[in-house]
């Protein structure tokens, strides 16, 4: 006990900052496509049209931002929780360079139109081989470090990390099986309904094992760390973990309600989606009761509100999701703008909130300094919170409006009340409002980036001062 561990922080710093960069770029692209929706003249063919920039926005934020920060924060947590330096730190640095090259290549090739045609699985096949290589490196480093650990018991965050390592590998490989045609073109190995079922098994569990399990790992580590409060119930976190990773894999078909897929597949998918409320809310309760031990932390420890709001949106997300799966609700909201409203509550509210708070904790820790400005962090918090709420609420209202307009049948003679164009015309004010919400969110993210950069700068200065002495 008490002996100093020579932690390896270089890969942590590298991935944290890379993720921040790709995050800023790709949120900005999100703003661009939100404007293109209500100002189609801004589509500049062939490379800068909506259908191409959208992929860079989505892939850039999933792989470039979320996965980079997952790498950064799990390399931090794994060292702290095993009480030993990262195994193969040089490999992690190689991984960092390949990662950034891969994201840059992904952005360029997507704009060039090299698209596999499956959502969240668009990258051309050579890049997907690269993703697998990067993931194997991650697996080797994480599993290796855990095996060589100095702390006997694995903490909750490590369970979530291991589950992430395994599940992402299985999901990614199966849904990217291709028949290559050329270096840039390939066709899915599966056809029609099977391809659809495999795609949504993959995509919904990308939500599970990229947007949920690793983020819960961060939540369970950094909430207690930043508040000094122990996790409320260890038993609840055990139940939550196993039931979550068991149930999630059953639910993909709720994306295909009313599709030509067999009814039983849809119904089982919907039923398991409803069951998901319990494991999800296990973590919500755990979070609330943890902070409930001392509510003054909300005021005094500036990161508490990030984590608590994050888990609140996670709770709302995991309640809204199952409701959307119900056939009655699904027939109204499916295919409408309700869906991006739902998705962005999860990504802007839960994922980004929790990741940013964890970064606020980690950067001062690895640079051995204090955060540059708590005030700016508070400004960041309110901007992203209000921005996300405007975005989501606007889209929910619009989604219901579209769903109802599409379904409306005139009682007079049983004909359709509205043409599709009428629903488009009615959407414009909402689409403009969403851009405004996104702008607030992006501003908040810029404040965050500035705060982080200034924290690092001040750390470098004091390091120089120490050396000079």
């Amino acid at each position, binding site marked *: 006990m008490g002996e100093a561990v020579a932690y390896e922080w270089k890969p942590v710093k590298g991935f944290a900052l890379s993720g921040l960069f790709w995050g800023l770029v790709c949120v900005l692209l999100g703003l661009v496509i939100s404007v*293109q929706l*209500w100002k189609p003249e801004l*589509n500049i*063919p*062939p490379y800068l*049209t*909506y*259908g*191409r920039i*959208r992929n860079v926005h989505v892939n850039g934020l999933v792989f470039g931002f979320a996965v980079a920060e997952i790498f950064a924060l799990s390399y931090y947590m794994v060292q702290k929780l095993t009480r030993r330096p990262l195994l193969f730190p040089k490999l992690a640095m190689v991984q960092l360079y390949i990662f950034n090259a891969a994201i840059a290549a992904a952005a360029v090739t997507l704009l060039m*139109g090299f*698209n*596999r*045609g499956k*959502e969240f699985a668009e990258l051309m096949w050579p890049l997907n081989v690269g993703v697998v290589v990067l993931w194997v490196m991650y697996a080797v480093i994480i*599993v290796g470090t855990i*095996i060589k650990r100095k702390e006997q*018991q*694995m903490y909750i965050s490590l369970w979530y990390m*291991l*589950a992430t390592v*395994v*599940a992402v590998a*299985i999901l990614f490989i199966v849904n990217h099986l291709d*028949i290559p045609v*050329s270096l840039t073109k390939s*066709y*899915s190995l599966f*056809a*029609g*309904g*099977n*391809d*659809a*079922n*495999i795609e949504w*098994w993959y995509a919904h569990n990308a939500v599970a094992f990229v947007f949920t399990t690793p983020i819960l790992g961060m939540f369970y580590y950094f909430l207690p760390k930043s508040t000094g409060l122990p996790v409320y119930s260890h038993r609840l976190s055990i139940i939550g973990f196993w039931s979550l*990773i068991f149930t*999630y*894999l*059953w639910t993909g078909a709720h994306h295909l309600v*009313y*599709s*030509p897929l067999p009814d039983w*597949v849809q119904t089982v*998918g919907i039923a398991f989606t409803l069951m998901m409320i319990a494991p999800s809310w296990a973590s919500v309760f755990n979070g609330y009761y943890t902070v409930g031990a001392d509510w003054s932390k909300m005021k005094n420890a500036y990161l508490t509100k990030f984590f608590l709001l994050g888990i609140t949106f996670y709770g709302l997300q995991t309640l809204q999701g199952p409701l959307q799966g119900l056939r009655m609700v699904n*027939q109204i909201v499916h*295919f409408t*703008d309700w*869906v991006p409203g739902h998705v962005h509550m999860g990504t802007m509210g839960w994922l980004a909130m929790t990741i940013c708070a964890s970064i606020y904790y980690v950067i001062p820790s690895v640079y051995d300094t204090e955060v540059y400005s708590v005030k700016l962090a508070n400004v960041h918090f309110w901007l992203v919170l209000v921005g996300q709420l405007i975005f989501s609420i606007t889209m929910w209202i619009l989604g219901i409006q579209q769903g109802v307009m599409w379904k409306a*049948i005139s009682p*007079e*003679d049983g*004909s*359709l009340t509205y*043409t*599709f*164009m009428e629903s*488009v*015309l009615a959407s414009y004010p909402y689409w403009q409002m969403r851009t405004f919400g996104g702008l607030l969110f992006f501003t908040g993210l810029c404040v965050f980036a500035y705060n982080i950069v200034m924290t690092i700068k001040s750390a470098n200065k004091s390091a120089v001062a120490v050396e000079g002495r």
Partner: protein
Amino acid sequence: MNIYSKPIFFTIVVTVVILIGTTVMMVFPAFSPEMAPKMANVHPYTALQLAGRDAYIENGCYYCHSQMIRPLKAETMRYGEYSKAGEFNYDQPFLWGSKRKGPDLARIGGKYSDKWHYKHMNDPRKLFQGSNMPAFGWMADYPVDAEQTEKGMKALGFPYTKEEIDALKDKTKLDAIIAYLQSLGTAIPKPPKQPMIAAGDKNPLAGDPKAIEEGKKIFDMNCAACHGVDAKGDVGPDLTDNEWLYVAGPIHDDTLFSIIADGTKKDQQFEGRAAKGGMPSWGEFFGKKKIWSVVTYIRSLESK
């Protein structure tokens, strides 16, 4: 002796837990014939259609257009017969989509003429005022990659002829994508329509100024796209002259009604005149009263 201090054993258990749902919901259905039943009239894509499908994917069309019609009343009225599993047996990847910023395209094939599609791709807002679809006329500057398409046909095991590939060399991506769109959803014949009115019915709203006003609104929003804002013709014919279906002389109200309600097919006979085809059907959208209003509006232009 607990699982949380044995990382390898823990990881194996996690893997097994994950594979249970995966097996039941993903692997098992893959072997069930319900997932991909054989269907008559569903054929592999031709080389040109495949090139068009590639262009459709390349430009991310599937982010805004779904290709899956749900078995819901309003939806089948708007888009046609609901989608069947067997219709997608040659779709690698599937392109059902998850969002409708634009309308569903599962049965767009044959709904509009090629000419209409070229015009629409060039400038969507000319046909639909206020549309937010980006223009895709620029695709005419990009020739189809015949060599890659041939490789694709081989990879997918689709039959093709040498002539078909040679013919690709003069085709652009715009030609290809329109050929692809025209193939969508055509495996299932359109169900016969119940006529909305009896033969010989007269327009109950004839001359009603309110109906003229209502009809103009509907016309401007939906019909002006092809017949021009002033109804003097564009993709579709002039409606203000005394020619109907390209032959001089008047037609009856009930004929005009059924052309609007059910659309036209090539060489379909109306009062002894042959249609050229290309008029889409509007009956599901408008209902009787709105169609009669449009008829009233068109008649009001005629008499000017």
